[in-house]
């Protein structure tokens, strides 16, 4: 499958006033495929929002990209430059869907004027034409066109987020970067936004979505693949069902294990969460960054950084853990030619 967006070796840091650099994203490489939703999940401070900011080409001081390239639709961009892609092309290539965008919006701007502003920023258009286009798009996606006349505060939280989704995709961007778009919503509105993103993909209005969230179960309903991030690195990457059902990295396993869903097994035993807290970016542990919280950590985990290597047989499941790797090698040695080399 062709990669729509390919990011290589991305490193980025926040520079503090005292000159100290906090590495929020460290050597992250990911691909987004045609027609795909790639979920990025992790606890707060894991670097997922920094990643979104950089890929949306919104990195600004004190955030500095130290290295990294991006390929999008055959265009090559060096992310360390201040303007990796010409402004005129950005709107058609990449758009963002932030969390509760309308709360930050001028409350005296009507939805239709917001649509006009967005279109005008990227192409020559008239008010009438912009409103017409926004209206047609709303209708196409099954939303009432009268919301164009409304002010943000007149819409419910869920409707607001759906309307902002429509507006942020008015230019038919190739890639939509959704940064916690549903985190402030209740479950019913969450579902509506997720359905709308799927609809946008099905209609080929957009070609790929990077969906950033801390809500792993939600990804089961939208993402084709999931990247689990921890302390600025990708800990595990694979098809959604595999990552959720058979997580390979101890962190991913703990994350899946601490999810509370209304299913009978949850009440059967005490759920144990993850001990400790994510590392301080200013004092990153040596070796595997999860080792201070990991029940499996050994000497090697404490010393050497584990690489992200394949752990499935389909060529699609990767994890960065020495212990997982060892277990797999051990199994492969014992069960040569076994039907499935997965580690439970």
């Amino acid at each position: 499958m062709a990669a729509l967006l390919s990011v290589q070796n991305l490193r980025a840091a926040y520079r503090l006033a005292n000159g100290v650099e906090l590495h929020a994203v460290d050597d992250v490489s990911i691909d987004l495929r045609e027609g795909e939703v790639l979920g990025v999940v992790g606890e707060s401070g894991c670097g997922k929002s920094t990643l979104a900011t950089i890929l949306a080409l919104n990195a600004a001081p004190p955030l500095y990209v130290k290295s990294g390239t991006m390929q999008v639709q055959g265009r090559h961009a060096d992310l360390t430059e201040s303007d990796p892609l010409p402004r005129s092309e950005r709107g058609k290539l990449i758009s963002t869907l932030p969390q509760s965008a309308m709360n930050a919006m001028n409350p005296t701007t009507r939805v239709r004027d917001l649509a006009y502003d967005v279109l005008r920023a990227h192409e020559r258009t008239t008010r009438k034409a912009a409103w017409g286009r926004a209206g047609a798009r709303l209708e196409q996606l099954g939303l009432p066109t009268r919301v164009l006349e409304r002010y943000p505060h007149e819409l419910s939280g869920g409707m607001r987020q759906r309307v902002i989704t429509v507006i942020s995709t008015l230019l038919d961007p190739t890639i939509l970067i959704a940064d916690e778009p549903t985190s402030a919503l209740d479950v019913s509105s969450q579902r509506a936004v997720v359905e709308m993103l799927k609809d946008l993909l099905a209609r080929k209005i957009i070609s790929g979505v990077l969906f950033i969230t801390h809500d792993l179960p939600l990804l089961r309903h939208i993402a084709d693949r999931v990247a689990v991030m921890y302390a600025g690195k990708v800990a595990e990457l694979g098809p959604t069902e595999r990552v959720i059902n058979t997580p390979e990295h101890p962190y991913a396993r703990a994350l899946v294990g601490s999810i509370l869903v209304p299913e009978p097994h949850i009440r059967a035993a005490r759920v144990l969460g993850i001990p400790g807290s994510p590392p301080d970016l200013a004092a990153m542990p040596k070796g595997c960054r999860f080792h201070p919280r990991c029940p499996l950590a050994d000497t090697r985990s404490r010393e050497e950084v584990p690489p992200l290597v394949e752990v499935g047989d389909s060529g699609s499941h990767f994890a960065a853990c020495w212990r997982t790797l060892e277990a797999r090698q051990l199994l492969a040695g014992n069960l040569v030619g076994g039907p499935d080399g997965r580690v439970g």
Partner: protein
Amino acid sequence: MDASVRPSHTGVQKSPVDQTQPLLAVRNLNRTFGSGANAVAAVKDVSFELYPGEIVALVGESGSGKSTLARLLLRLLAPTSGEIQLLGKNVTHGPKTAYWREVQAVFQDPFASFNQFYSVRRVMLSALGVLQKQPTRAERDSRLRTALSQVGLSESLLEKRPYELSGGQRQRVMMARALMLAPQLLIADEPTSMLDASLRVSILNQLKDVRDATGTTLLLITHDLGQAYYVSDRLLVMYRGELVDTGPTEQVVAQSQHPYTRALIADVPTLH
């Protein structure tokens, strides 16, 4: 669970609690905001009981009125009509400090609920302001120690300032603050919604442990059915200001016939 004998961890014996008498009873509670054509009924004719030692979860989507109901129950907001009874006594109006000795709260935002100029010690000791008689220094210290240990925090945190604590630690401090008073009812209004998934579990476990250890009744207000399901004995489902469904948690989730409850359950993302 056994709540017939309510151990009091401070050594102060409270009145014996009758298992069959509700700790808190709410009768036809209403709260309307605004007036005339602009009137919005945030809480409509809500009635329910909380029994000693129970963990009850109040679930509903945003705008369902559950936070308004929480403020009514905490007497931070006066109802338009209706009655709140604590152990059979009408407490809808009248002095609040006595009420707050028995009913305390933990709020949603671990950052905003902290006075940022206070140390942990000061935040915790401030709770004693509702007591009639200020305890001796020795008793204050013993309450501090007990409360901290009940939420699994070390005493070394006492002199810390809020910005030195993580979100999870702050939320535990707020729990410990409430426990300083050994309240009969603890109302937790979305205590985990601003925390990471891994921390959510530990806060909920902590709340459960507090109930198990002290018999404190717990009302957990949440929009997350998964959390409610994990921790609660009984569910109250709120929709557009009304209490639409109630029952033992497992029974409601598995068998509820109410269309709103069913829709709510159907919308929750699941793992399997």
